[in-house]
């Protein structure tokens, strides 16, 4: 597809779905991108056990709570040690490209529901009540986009199949999964667009699909036998691909072009049972994603920050089935060439019974939204007041750690 055709489609898509809401979109803005820096947000669905991933081995109480853990953790700084399944990330840590924040959480409390917890993490509000009171569900990453100049549909990308609240909202963005194609002739695509013209949801999705399937396949849509072969390849990819690697690879490809912001999710963190085994698979996915991003981004890695965030941490005590149940405070992972790594940020609350949240969970000592806000300020130069009001309502950034170089 020629670049003018591609621009035209992106343009119509933006106009079709959100031009009214975003006065920044005009055809001429495509010449510029909002910044040279890149931000990737990885949502870790299921409640990652921060205490197992970044272990507070220097806290004398820790060992008493956790008797069945995977052995062979990697020392970070005497106080903390990294889960053995993340050993492949130690070179990144040593180069200062990997860091953590501990005892952090969203403002979500008490009911410990995955689904409310994830909604609040992605929506970025101060409470479920505030989210419910807001008109329409928008995500904090989308609200941040509304503050950037020169945003167009390819500036931000939701990668993968799940519906990310994080990027929903008024600012245009794209979403796509690697390995898809739209097997229609050009004429068929025109009919499709006409069929969808009165249905905004189908229309917007089809526009993106038409553009991206042509782009990611590098040109013309195949027809006849070729098309069937192409579809067979897609099926195979959906079955066999290492999902995390595919997501990271696709993200990096987009970031080499006009994309500056991307998000995807990795699941498998709900480790109620036999945690030494169940954690390993999820951590390997995360490790693969981060290493693939670094490799595939090449020189751009230096301008990139990656934030890995989860809806809540897990109980301090292991439960009766060598696992952990839903908790409160947890850990954030960050990586990239644009971050100041090799440190574990945060104020450690201690693990004695009276220091726990409700005698059960790691006490959160910082709002995880503050770290995301700080990263965006460092990368894109937002004002504190915009971040505290528009992006993360009721956030106080006063004590938010700065970790962008």
């Amino acid at each position, binding site marked *: 597809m020629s670049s003018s055709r591609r621009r035209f489609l992106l343009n119509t898509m933006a106009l079709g779905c959100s031009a009214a809401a975003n006065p920044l979109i005009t055809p001429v803005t495509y010449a510029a991108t909002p910044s040279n820096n890149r931000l990737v947000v990885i949502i870790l669905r299921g409640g990652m056990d921060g205490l197992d991933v970044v272990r507070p081995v220097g806290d004398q109480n820790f060992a008493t709570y956790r008797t069945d853990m995977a052995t062979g953790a990697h020392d970070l700084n005497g106080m903390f040690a990294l889960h053995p399944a993340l050993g492949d990330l130690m070179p990144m840590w040593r180069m200062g490209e990997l860091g953590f924040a501990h005892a952090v959480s969203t403002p979500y409390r008490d009911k410990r529901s995955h689904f409310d917890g994830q909604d609040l993490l992605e929506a970025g509000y101060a409470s479920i009540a505030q989210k419910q009171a807001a008109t329409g569900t928008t995500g904090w990453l989308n609200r941040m986009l509304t503050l950037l100049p020169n945003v167009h549909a390819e500036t931000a990308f939701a990668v993968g199949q799940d519906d990310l609240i994080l990027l929903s909202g008024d600012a245009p963005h794209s979403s*796509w999964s690697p390995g898809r194609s739209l097997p229609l*002739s050009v*004429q068929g695509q025109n009919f499709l667009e006409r069929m969808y013209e009165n249905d905004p*949801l189908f229309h917007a999705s089809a526009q993106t699909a038409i553009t991206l399937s042509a782009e990611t396949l590098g040109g013309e849509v195949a027809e006849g036998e070729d098309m069937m072969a192409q*579809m067979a390849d*897609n099926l195979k990819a*959906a079955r066999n691909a290492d999902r995390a690697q595919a997501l990271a690879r696709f993200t990096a490809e987009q970031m080499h072009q006009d994309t500056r912001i991307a998000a995807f999710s990795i699941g498998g963190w*709900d480790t109620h049972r036999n945690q030494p085994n169940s954690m390993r698979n999820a951590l390997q996915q995360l490790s693969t994603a981060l290493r693939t991003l670094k490799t595939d981004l090449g020189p751009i890695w230096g301008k990139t920050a990656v934030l890995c965030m989860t809806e809540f941490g897990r109980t301090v005590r292991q439960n*009766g089935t060598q696992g952990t149940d839903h908790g409160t405070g947890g850990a954030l992972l960050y990586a990239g060439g644009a971050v100041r790594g090799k440190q574990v940020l945060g104020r450690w609350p201690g693990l004695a019974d009276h220091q726990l949240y409700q005698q059960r969970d790691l006490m959160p000592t910082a709002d995880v939204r503050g770290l995301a806000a700080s990263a965006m300020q460092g990368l894109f130069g937002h004002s504190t007041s915009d971040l505290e009001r528009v992006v993360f309502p009721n956030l106080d950034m006063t004590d938010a750690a700065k970790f962008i170089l």
Partner: protein
Amino acid sequence: MAHSPETISAFRYGFGLGQHQPTATPENLIAQLHAADTITQAYPTFGFDAAVAQFSEFARLTKAEKSGDAQAGQQRQQARKDMRKIQEDALRHVFFRAMYSPNQFRERLVHFWLNHFTVSAKNARLSLLVIPFVEEAIRPHIASNFTTLLTQATLHPAMLDYLDQSASIGPNSIAGRRRDRGLNENLARELLELHTLGVNGAYTQTDVRQLAELLTGLRTGRQGMIYQRQWAEPGTEQILGKTYGGDRPQLAHIHEFLDDLARRADTATHITRKLAVHFFSDNPPQDLLAHMASTYRVSGGDLMQVYGAMLTNKHSFSAIGAKVRTPFEYVVSGLRALGITSTEAENYSSRHFRRDITLPMRLMGQVMFRPAGPDGWPEDASAWITPSNLAGRLQWAMQITRATGRSQSLDPRLFLTQALGDLASKQTRFAASNAANRQEALALILASPEFNRR
């Protein structure tokens, strides 16, 4: 334009137009639930006993092989193939039931309740247990009292395994004191949050914890659920303001709690809202919700009466299209609309079924019986119609019309009526009659918003 009640009924309460299109009256839809469930004989699946037999045989052969029995090794390979085959046959039959049952509303309800009480096939064991779960805990009880359905679903081995209950031990129980094991609160939480009260319901973390204690003792045995008193936490539990249990733990205490739970007002609100959201829209009309919830409360959770309230409301046959068909609904409706006969379907090989049905569904965002979490598949349209999932639907539309030979034999103008009745928009009619070839014309009809919505 007002559409006919027949079309509305087929889209809202069934898997679209096609064979066995139900007559569009509330009485007919209710009668489907009273009728004998004969489609299960035409397309049988399997129960817990058969699943256990498969596991046991496999385990026996694995052990024999390890101790050096070479023949057992070969038999083990065969057992693995057998296990896979009974699962694949059952999966095909799940599709065939939905495609060919004269009681379309019953099939839709089975899938609704399976999704409400999600058990996800996240490992090999659960992959074998999902089918018995539908067959034993869900399907026979969708028209009884909610207490019955709740009890059957909660106490089925598949649920006990999926939400880790079968490993949870009372810390002060005989077994708990003897070894270093204890509570797992996974099932207790989802039972309140997802299955009954809803996340906005009136319960606390303490209720979750106390309930986790009450539920100890529930295990999976070779014959099904067993209650193991040595695992059960002794003493009473305070849950939702009432005291349950006693010094001698009994299964009856759990039944008593589930019975109370099913009757709570929060449960009535949550369950009826979920039904209305599934069949009507993400924001169902207030009067419909109020009518259904009060029917639930007054009848003590009699599901037939709740369905009756849903079907005899002024909204029952109102305009459709606020919801999007899930990939399963889309595929089943597509096959019905294409007029795939039961003989054709039954002759489809497992390999082709994977190629043309279950793998394409992955590209639409749904791995059959394997949602990501216990909240099941999403209801909102935007979750399904993402660019990549929509491309998956189109890809399947092109593929299936060709794989079934319909791209050679089916006139798109005829298909327009078969698939959409009186729903086709002007643009869809135009696309169907002007597309470059039959395959694309048929695929465009399957891709139309009217066909994807319900």
